[in-house]
């Protein structure tokens, strides 16, 4: 008996994630970490882990894991459920957003959600893969951290914690949206786009099918270069997560956790950090509108 989970089936993508590895952008290391941070933290707390413990981010389900020892798991993200296959072939169904006890030898199956994209599976004790620069997160851009899960991947599980799990009564669950309006803080390069505030307020964009953990590309009205900036080239500069970058074709890209630490196209605005997690769940074809707001840096 080993305290581990073994991958027996895999869907489009499943990654080990935690709170990420902030603080290394100056040497080119992305923050990485769970795209839907609140969902990840909630899953951890449901099984009695600290919110920054390592768990799994499962894109569109398809994942099955055999437990080497009895463990407690919880799935969050879009509403749904998981299945537990017993050794005798019987299956039971369990809801998401609650702690589920799994016996040694049982197989936990994470099906594709009916809405949204990414589920977060926590296991009591957390995943004990090796840390890289203080984090256990996979990083799809730089390749740091554990490789994407494959059939046969063995995931060590840490010792159970003494933290009381949060109860499930307080957890509200709603379907992932397919249309959102998000607050966008204009700048730092809003002046590079012609009438940035007006165009961003008026337009509706569609989530392109090419999105990944680096960024989500939006299709819609082109954000054109301001006349005063035409032909000018911006030198690469640091980027934060949620930056909305405007490449020459005018179709904006919203940068997510695995974004490059610097970029050379103007950033017209930054999605409010409290609203960024929704981009982890927006399916291709979803619609995005912006509420642009002026933000000034604080005075000393």
């Amino acid at each position, binding site marked *: 008996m080993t305290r581990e989970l073994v991958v027996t089936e895999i869907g489009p993508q499943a990654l080990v994630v935690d709170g990420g590895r902030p603080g*290394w952008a100056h*040497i*080119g290391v992305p923050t990485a970490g769970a795209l839907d941070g609140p969902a990840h933290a909630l899953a951890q707390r449901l099984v009695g882990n600290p919110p920054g413990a390592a768990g799994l981010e499962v894109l569109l389900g398809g994942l099955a894991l055999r437990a080497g020892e009895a463990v407690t798991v919880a799935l969050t993200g879009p509403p749904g459920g998981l299945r537990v296959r017993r050794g005798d072939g019987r299956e039971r169904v369990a809801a998401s957003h609650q702690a589920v006890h799994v016996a040694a030898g049982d197989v936990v199956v994470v099906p594709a959600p009916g809405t949204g994209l990414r589920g977060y599976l926590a296991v009591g004790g957390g995943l004990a893969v090796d840390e890289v*620069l203080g984090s256990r997160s996979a990083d799809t851009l730089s390749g740091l951290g554990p490789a994407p899960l494959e059939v046969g991947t063995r995931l060590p599980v840490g010792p159970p914690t003494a933290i009381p799990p949060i109860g499930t009564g307080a957890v509200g669950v709603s379907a992932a949206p397919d249309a959102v309006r998000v607050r966008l803080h204009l*700048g730092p390069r809003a002046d590079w786009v012609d009438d940035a505030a007006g165009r961003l307020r008026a337009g509706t964009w569609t989530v392109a099918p090419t999105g990944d953990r680096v960024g989500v590309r939006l299709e819609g009205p082109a954000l054109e270069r301001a006349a005063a900036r035409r032909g000018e080239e911006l030198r690469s500069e*640091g*980027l*934060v997560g949620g930056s909305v970058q405007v490449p020459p074709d005018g179709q904006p890209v919203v940068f997510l956790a695995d974004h490059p630490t610097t970029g050379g196209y103007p950033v017209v605005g930054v999605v409010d950090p409290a609203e960024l997690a929704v981009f982890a769940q927006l399916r291709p074809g979803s619609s995005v509108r912006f509420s642009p707001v002026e933000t000034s840096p*604080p005075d*000393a």
Partner: protein
Amino acid sequence: MDVLPAGPEALLVELGDLDEVAAVGAALRDALDRGDLPGVVDVVPAARTVLVTAPGAREALRAVRALLDGVDPTVVPDRGAAGTVELPVVYDGEDLELVARDAGWSADDVVAAHTGAELTVAFGGFAPGFAYLAGLPEALQQPRLDTPRPRIPSGSVGVAGEFGGVYPRTSPGGWRLIGRLADDAPTLFDPDRDPPALLVPGTTVRFRDAGRR
């Protein structure tokens, strides 16, 4: 010095040149290392900007503003401790002839100029361990390729605009490639090492001709 918003939890300091970036970047990094900027997570110098982030702690940016008001960007920091790194290069890059032609030189002239230059790490970014090296001879300051390559092998040595650089790992990229690190070159990025990046701001870099081209 202009200070631009980069969302509610970060600001972007815009500066006149690389020396000002070095001065402001070093002042912020030193204050961060001293523990004087609680809540600040990243200080990211680039070509003409320094990004400062304080995720979840936007009030921390007030202390950053106060610090910036007291920094003289014309005073270049003393980074004597950053040291010197010599990198052996096999000059057989795919773009060596292109770089030579645009410089109006022979390939040997390019190698002589590249190995004769004393470069300084201005800042890091793009990929783990990638360093932007300032001090490239003017004839080697050449534009990026029109079409980036989807896959540049680890260790490739290139030039782009005012900077030289070495790709620490295989990645896409648009720099003109003049060579690659020799097998005995030091490792540019090792997450188990402290610091993980070999080339940190202020480090002096010299390239050595490891022959065979």
